[in-house]
């Protein structure tokens, strides 16, 4: 498989407004107008949520303290990947990803209020203020995190697939990673296990071209997804700026997992406009022109908007309304977060052991905590 010309070529030549092949792929052709609008809406909700979180990060709270601490890795520019992939989830499909997890969390259907509250470190956060930006979880939405150690989530994703197979459930696990993560040993061990044991997992490489300040060319030998061949796995590659294209490719790979219990690897080309994290916005490793190129020509939300307008699914007035709603949602998430209380020092030792949280059912004896 070679890298095919991307859909962006069409956009550059001004024909982006025409529906491409990917809109005609069966999985997309089958979408109703409301479903198409929903894909767009989810992307814009992610964008506005993150823009709002960025403002909170840069601002101060009423007592002059930080609203959000630590790292904030923004997904801005990559929205079509998580939205495209997660829109294909059935009830037995599961998702796991790395620390750049806000997009996936919203795409699987998490409520933005507890997501924002988590960033603020509040007790009303989705992880009670214990995990922060990098560690969102929602098992009730088949979303298993939110993981801070590069590549560490990939064996877990493989384990989700193992559990599905063991329990005889027809589903698939999607294990997301960045282009830098493919160089972790754990990823390779997971590839081998998945292929050897025929596990229903799709390894999704979100290739945004950089791992922090290191370009793909400076960190990785060979085409990333092609490494799957060494483990006898099929692989695919696509452009991640068009949500239809993401869905068209992922549908095939998810079907392979669900129907034949075979793992595969997908490499999705995408781009982040912001720095690696907000605390680390250094852009010395790439040019402003490059960022502007992507912003102007390949922005997933713009690409989608043009298509929906061309398809006659959206009007500009409706698009404006959706945007206004997304902004209002982000604003009320921030208000909720701001108004919520912090955990107390007494909360520090909760959620460590199942047994200490369920003292009545405790079976083990002896001391669990020390001072």
């Amino acid at each position, binding site marked *: 498989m070679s890298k095919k010309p991307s859909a962006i070529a069409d956009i550059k030549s001004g024909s982006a407004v025409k529906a491409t092949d990917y809109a005609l792929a069966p999985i997309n052709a089958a979408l109703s107008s409301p479903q198409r609008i929903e894909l767009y809406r989810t992307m814009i909700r992610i964008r506005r949520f993150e823009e709002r979180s960025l403002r909170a990060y840069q601002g101060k709270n009423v007592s002059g*303290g*930080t609203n959000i*601490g*630590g*790292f904030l890795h923004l997904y801005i520019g990559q929205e079509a990947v998580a939205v495209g992939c997660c829109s294909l989830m059935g009830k037995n499909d599961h998702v796991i990803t790395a620390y750049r997890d806000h997009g996936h969390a919203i795409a699987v259907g998490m409520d933005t209020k507890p997501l924002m509250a*988590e960033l603020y*470190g*509040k007790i009303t956060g989705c*992880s009670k*203020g*214990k*995990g*922060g930006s*990098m*560690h969102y979880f929602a098992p009730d939405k088949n979303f298993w995190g939110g*993981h*801070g*150690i*590069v*590549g*560490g989530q990939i064996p877990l994703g493989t384990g989700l697939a193992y559990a599905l197979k063991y329990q005889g459930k027809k589903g698939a696990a999607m294990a997301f990673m960045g282009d*830098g*993560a493919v*160089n*972790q*040993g*754990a990823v390779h061990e997971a590839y081998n296990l998945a292929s050897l044991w025929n596990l229903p997992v799709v390894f999704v490489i979100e290739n945004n071209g950089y*791992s*922090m*300040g*290191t370009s793909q060319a*400076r*960190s*990785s030998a060979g085409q990333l997804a092609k490494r799957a061949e060494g483990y006898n796995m099929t692989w695919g590659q696509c452009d991640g700026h068009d949500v239809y294209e993401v869905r068209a490719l992922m549908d095939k790979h998810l079907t392979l997992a669900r129907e034949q219990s075979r793992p595969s690897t997908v490499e999705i080309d995408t781009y982040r406009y912001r720095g690696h994290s907000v605390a*680390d916005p*250094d852009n*010395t*490793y790439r040019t402003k022109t490059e960022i502007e190129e992507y912003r102007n020509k390949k922005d997933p939300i713009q690409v989608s908007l043009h298509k929906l307008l061309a398809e006659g699914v959206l009007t500009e007035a409706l698009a404006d309304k959706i945007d206004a709603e997304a902004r209002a949602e982000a604003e009320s998430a921030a208000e909720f977060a701001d108004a919520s209380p*912090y*955990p*107390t*020092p007494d*909360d*520090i*030792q909760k959620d*460590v052991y199942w047994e200490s949280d369920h003292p009545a059912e405790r079976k083990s004896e002896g001391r669990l*905590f*020390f*001072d």
Partner: protein
Amino acid sequence: MPQITYREAIRHALAEELTRDPNVVVMGEEVAQFNGAYKVTDGLLATFGPTRIVDTPISEAGFIGLGVGASMLGIRPVMELMFWSFYSVAFDQILNNAANVRYMSGGQINCPIVIRGPANGGTNVGATHSHTPENVLANHPGVKVVVPATAYDAKGLLKSAIRDNDPVFFLENTILYGDKGEVPEAEYVIPLGKADVKRVGADLTIVTYGRCVIHSLKAAEVLEKDHGISVEVVDLRTIRPLDFDTVLASVKKTNRVLIVEEQKPFASVGTQLAYMIQREAFDHLDGPIHRLATIDAPAIYSPPVETEQLPNPARVIKAVLAAMA
């Protein structure tokens, strides 16, 4: 004496050792072109070039192991872990290979590697990024562990670490990187294994290291002023080799001890110290050995609560008052 930051002090140590010994190589994620995730290696690429200052992929097991192997052939690799928290990915290379190769070869092979990077909580980056593994590392005979608290110590100790023929693990602190201290322009080294009395006192000894030295010094001032308690602060600087003589001398003088450490309490550095103090100085103690550590749970993200989970000056004051009661 010029005032420079802890970050600059480490950078100067690296630059001086790179200049002195052509076998010194600096390697790690983002150390070269990006000038370091925390800018410790800022400018080194421009001065020493890409053969000496090397960017790696995100492959800790691979590049740390490569450093161990290269050190066996006489290279002096100074490997940066962006966070010590990521050492777990390279555990086998660090604690099986680096720690054991000399022993298992009957002393034929040396492993003069340095692994350095920050190891601390307090920056709201959550449980995966806030490990303080000095106790885990120091549990392995064959390795040396250094945790500097000041710019002066960081520079002198890192130079010794690079010249050392054994594996040395050097644990820095992102919160200290910007702290300034006096550092002489003339060259100096601080031998590994020498504690430093950072404040002389009479009533109680705080044994500590790393950022907790700074907390303890702040607390000591308040205790002196508001409570008339004279606290001696002993900074271990090196965890292994351990300068227990300095600890012992101080305890025999003050007869009271508080250990302060940014560690989870179970089997921590302080646990080992407490054992040794009671064994060697039991008759000199006027009360039980006290210890202040991190509250025993994974690192909480929530910014104001994380401050309470870790030792801080207020908690040190409380602990000293309890020990004096």
